[in-house]
């Protein structure tokens, strides 16, 4: 392996890891804000207990999202300096704007929310969590605009003299059609993820009929969020597939391991045979589904890998323009599969607990508890699919991954970085999951007696 391969592994590991925490942060900040709003409006105690309980779990995750986010920004320069030189004029802007508009908002108002319970008036304190939540959404928008530019570069021209991409329309970059479908797809997936956290943790308690007043509504809320967000993910995913077929037809072909241009094309649920789908022993297929996903018409023709490879070679010069099909084929299926599975469990959980029922089936509870992992896996496979499916490009059609690395970074340095960060992240994962389980298992707090207003020097309501 050379430094570039190591840098790619690092980017994959570090980014997938970071994206365990991001969707929970985005989704849960809004759900916690919603619960706190319900408390402020109704004054019902169980809403406050729910706010504090889910808020705590949210914060345990948020800490990891923050610290792993720093690496995200630094590693473009560290491991991908030629990429940074090439795209900096365009790609740097959304990153800088993300910091200025979103990171300050999130971190400042979350600090106010965490420590502000007894310092801020109720309404103002509620506003802080909403502002932090808006910060997470803004952050998602700008970083997805940056990523979408890599999938579908717009609003730029190549400077022949410097050989770099130069921005000529920030409006085009921020309203990239790819961004406009990727943002809702990602955000709905974030809510699906957060809903699954509520569903799973509530199921854990409800199974033992523990704190039903908090966790029965928690399970309902979580399951409904999973279902509604899940429908959103499906609709936006469908729109995204069509745009992807237009902009990166090779990625769609690689998603199905479709080698020959076909119409109408079916979608295989799974295939047994060689990993890259060239030789097929058996498969389960839904006729016309791929045509529908790719073109919106059940009889539409879908271009195959072989034709595309030939067309790209003519356009971009000789070379291999086919992504690694075993990864794209399976990650695409696993993304969809785990998302649908979470929705299925949510629907069953709602049905089984209807009208105050508490089902006895152990397997049902296990299924509900395991929902927590499903969207996390679906999200990861989604990112793996979309990034691996773009290969061999970092910027589709413009700049290759092979040209993107850092010439001044040695293999030993890249290996050190990969190993150090992977080991550190592994240790932190153990710590984080341990704390999450501990606090999730402890249940919602009983509320402390209202503080004595007279006493100016009373202990802090929250302290590290």
């Amino acid at each position, binding site marked *: 392996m050379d430094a570039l391969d190591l840098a790619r592994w690092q980017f994959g590991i570090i980014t997938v890891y970071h994206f365990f925490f991001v969707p929970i942060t985005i989704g849960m900040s809004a759900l916690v804000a919603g619960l706190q709003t319900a408390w402020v409006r109704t004054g019902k105690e169980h809403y406050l207990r729910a*706010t*504090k*309980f889910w*808020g*705590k779990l949210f914060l*345990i995750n948020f*800490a*990891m999202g*923050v610290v792993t986010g*720093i690496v995200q*920004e*630094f590693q*473009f*320069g*560290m491991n991908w*300096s030629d990429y*940074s030189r090439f*795209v*900096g*004029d365009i790609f*740097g*802007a959304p*990153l*800088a*704007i993300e*910091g*200025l508009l979103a*990171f*300050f*908002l999130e*971190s400042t108002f979350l*600090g*106010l929310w965490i*420590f*502000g*319970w007894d*310092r*801020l008036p109720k309404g103002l304190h509620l506003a802080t969590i909403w502002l932090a939540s808006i910060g997470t959404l803004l952050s998602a928008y700008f970083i997805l605009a940056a990523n979408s530019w890599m999938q579908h570069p717009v609003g730029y021209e190549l400077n022949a003299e410097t050989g770099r991409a*130069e*921005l000529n329309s*920030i409006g085009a970059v921020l309203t990239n059609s790819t961004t406009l479908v990727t943002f809702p797809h990602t955000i709905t997936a974030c809510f699906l993820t957060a809903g699954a956290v509520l569903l799973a943790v509530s199921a854990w308690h409800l199974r033992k009929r523990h704190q039903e007043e908090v966790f029965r509504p928690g399970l309902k809320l979580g399951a409904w969020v999973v279902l509604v967000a899940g429908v959103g993910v499906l609709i936006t995913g469908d729109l995204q597939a069509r745009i992807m077929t237009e902009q990166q037809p090779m990625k769609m072909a690689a998603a199905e391991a479709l080698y020959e241009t076909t119409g109408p094309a079916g979608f295989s649920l799974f295939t047994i045979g060689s990993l890259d789908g060239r030789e097929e022993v058996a498969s389960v297929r839904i006729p016309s589904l791929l045509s529908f996903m790719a073109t919106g018409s059940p009889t539409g023709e879908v271009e195959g890998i072989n034709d595309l490879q030939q067309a790209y070679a003519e356009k971009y010069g000789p070379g291999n323009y086919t992504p690694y099909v075993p990864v794209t084929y399976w990650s695409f299926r696993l993304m969809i599969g785990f998302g649908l599975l979470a929705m299925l469990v949510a629907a069953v959980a709602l049905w089984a607990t209807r009208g105050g029922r508490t089902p006895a089936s152990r397997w049902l509870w296990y299924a509900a508890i395991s929902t927590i992992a499903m969207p996390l896996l679906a999200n990861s496979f989604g990112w793996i699919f979309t990034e691996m499916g773009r290969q061999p490009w970092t910027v589709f059609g413009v700049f290759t991954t092979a040209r993107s690395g850092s*010439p*001044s*970074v040695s293999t030993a*340095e890249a290996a*050190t*970085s990969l190993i150090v*960060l992977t080991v*550190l992240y592994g240790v*932190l994962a153990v710590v984080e999951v341990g*704390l999450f389980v501990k*606090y999730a298992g*402890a*249940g919602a707090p009983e509320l402390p007696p209202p503080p004595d207003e007279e006493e100016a*020097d*009373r*202990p802090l*309501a929250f*302290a*590290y």
Partner: protein
Amino acid sequence: MELTTVWFALIAVLWAGYFLLEGFDFGVGILLPFLGRDDRERRLLINTIGPVWDGNEVWLLVAGGATFAAFPEWYATLFSGFYLPLLIILVALIVRGVAFEYRGKRDDAVWKRRWDYCIIGGSLVPALLWGVAFGNIVRGVRLDADHEYVGGFLDLLNPYALLGGLTTLTLFTLHGAVFLALKTGGEMRERAGRLAAALAVPALVVAGGFLLWTAVAHPDSAGWILSGIAALALAGAAVATRLRREGWAFLATGATVVLATFSLFVTLFPDVMPSTIASANSLTTTNAASTPYTLTVMTWVAVVFTPIVLVYQGWTYWVFRKRLTVEHIPVAPVRAGETG
């Protein structure tokens, strides 16, 4: 003024803001074992920066992002060239950030002690390495004609840069002690005030030496003036800490940090990363910059949003302005499921 100069100045402001703010919370972390004699006292120290440290760190992310957007060549060369030091800084910032959040989440002495080490090391290491990095930037590094760093890791550990590291380390530690004297009450205020007074003189010697070395090696009248005022401010801080004028002392150490940072940037200008191989290889505000269009867009974004950020971040400090004492720290650590 040229937009490239505006952005050079803005990046100087972002780094100065970062050092001004995270400087004191690095200092608090470094002083944890010296001022916090038991768990409750250490928690008191950590809670003085609890609501703000994360917002302070965002200054670094924005400085990095702004460099990427405005001077991509600088960002690319700097981050890939200073690879290992930046990796160490990243690891330090990661363990430190997690430590603040997780330390109190188990009532277990070993658990807390481990996180304390993370806070101490995670504060000390970046406080030292940022100075080393900036020392090297000002001094110049080996850049080839493609602006690639061709020096090694050990080249970065030269005496001038190491003195730069010692300067940020002592300055931030002093800044933290002064901050604690301002933000705590009771015995801790007394103890922090005494320590600040004791730290001021060594800080003056080290930082004065570094600024003088810089001024002599890179004669520049504006640089001279700024480092002169920075040194005066630091001397003022030494006096104020002795007189226990905590507000003045904090203003003085803050001014020192900001002015010293500005003096380095002024000395650097119009280079952003000079090459020691050939001056033609140096990265400058012109050859490292983005296009005028990108800089214009970014200028508008900065003009509109920076004031808003400053207002709400400033407001946070106002909300949490009260001095903290050990009595404010709940005796029982936060238990599972308690408060948010």
